[in-house]
């Protein structure tokens, strides 16, 4: 039930992101979702793509420092209070969210929230118990 994400280390300097997107474009990789965490010196670009393995390899070949990790994708109705209900469930269980980012499905009815937890398996169990829809990786890669 987990989704594989790749993270890329970027220095904060002009052209950094452009280089990554160019490598991915040349490798014909499609980006499904992304988030960029930044500090004053560096950033971490996190991507979910249609072909994780190939994306990782193309970036590594270009000298990027890349790391794979697992995140959880949860589908919720795109309406007020949608995110709150998930966070409330996790909070009750004392599960920490390391970071999160969201995107809206093309049909526009549902939103997909990507979570990185400190205790991934427990989080998945808690969400499923409470009836949330967790999307498998395959579904996200091919959206």
């Amino acid at each position: 039930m987990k989704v594989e994400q790749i993270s890329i280390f970027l220095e904060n300097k002009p052209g950094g992101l452009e280089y990554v997107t160019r490598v991915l474009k040349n490798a014909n990789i499609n980006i499904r979702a992304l988030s960029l965490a930044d500090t004053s010196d560096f950033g971490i670009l996190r991507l979910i793509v249609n072909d994780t393995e190939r994306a990782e390899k193309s970036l590594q070949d270009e000298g990027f420092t890349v790391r794979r990790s697992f995140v959880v994708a949860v589908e919720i109705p795109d309406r007020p209070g949608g995110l709150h209900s998930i966070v409330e469930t996790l909070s009750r269980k004392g599960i920490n969210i390391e970071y999160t980012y969201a995107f809206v499905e093309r049909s526009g009815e549902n939103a997909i929230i990507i979570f990185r937890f400190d205790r991934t398996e427990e989080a998945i169990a808690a969400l499923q118990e409470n009836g949330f829809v967790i999307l498998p990786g395959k579904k996200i890669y091919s959206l």
Partner: protein
Amino acid sequence: MIFDEEFETLPREALEALQLKRLQQVAERVYHTVGFYRNAFDEAGVTPDDIKTLDDIRRLPFTTKKDLQDNYPFGLFAVPMGNVIRLHASSGTTGKPTVVGYTKRDIDTWSVLMARSFVASGLTRNDIIHNAYGYGLFTGGLGAHYGAERLGASVIPMSGGSTKKQILILQDFGPTAICCTPSYALYLAEQGEEMGVDMKSLRLRVGILGAEPWSEQMREEIEERLGITALDIYGLSEIIGPGVAIECKEGRSGLHVFEDHFIVEAINPATGSPVKNGEIGELVFTTLTKEAFPLIRYRTRDLSKLVRTPCRCGRTLTRMARVSGRSDDMLIIRGVNVFPSQIESVLLGIEGLEPHYQLIVEREGTLDTLEIRVEVSEKIFSDQVRGLQQIERRITKDIKDYLGVTAAVKLVEAKTLERFEGKAQRVIDKRRI
């Protein structure tokens, strides 16, 4: 004024005769009391009896910083510990410091040399000396302190740091002289101005500045902003500490080496042979009178040139020009000696870090800054910002703990720092000194 008129103005012939006698004595003494020197002399095929003239010093082997490290901590001491009354230390090229020891007479000699230095700078017993050199293992603080007391001046044992308090004391106690590094003198000027203090109207009139390289332009700026005469003092803990050589106020052109206690040579660092008179070479010192920690032909790695012409102050002592650089990669950052190899060993002590790094030294305003650029490898990289920030903090902390300097850490992309075949140039020194 001259503190030790007799010794500081000896005719060259008499001075050289005294040096020869003392050189023969120290060679004899280290040969019989320090195992390291017995081996080194034997290997070089020389005995103390071979020293018939001063030029024969060239037959003696050099001593290097590595020899000091190999004999850490007390292996080169020439007296039993019972006779050692003080220990000091400075940074070595690896994790271990360089340790030096003093007998009661060594402390006495050192105090006299510092008193001579103060008098050469125009000070008398009526002066108040603000001593902002660090007190502790560093020789600067206590060396200047004892010299000031020997002169009979009033010494304020300020040590380093607490800049605002220093400025308060400069205003209220009215010291007439200050001892510190040149960059700290400028920093005091800058901070004082920022606090709205008219730094030129203080009673300060002389600065005895050293422990790091500086330039004529920097001297002019210090003199202008503090309204003082700034003089250069030279020394290194291995030889005795500050007070090996001092610029006189009358000449202000080169530093007089106290040759009745030290023999100074300038050599070609690559070949070890003497450079021609007036050419830049690496300074090599032999201690003539030190008891606890005598050194034969110690290679300082400091580059300078020797001037043997007479000085208008009346001293007959050889002068060394302001130190113009190093023949190794040692950096002096805010008065602290730092070797890139020390930084490398700290980095490699942190799991997952690779030895791809670069050091950027700059001078921001008046203070030196050190930035360490480290490549991010897959071993330390994670998808979380926190993990990388922890690495940054760990590096800063370890560098501070082991080396005593504050460094800014910048993580950079893998394989973006230059790779070297052969000797790496890891240091970019942007300071214009």
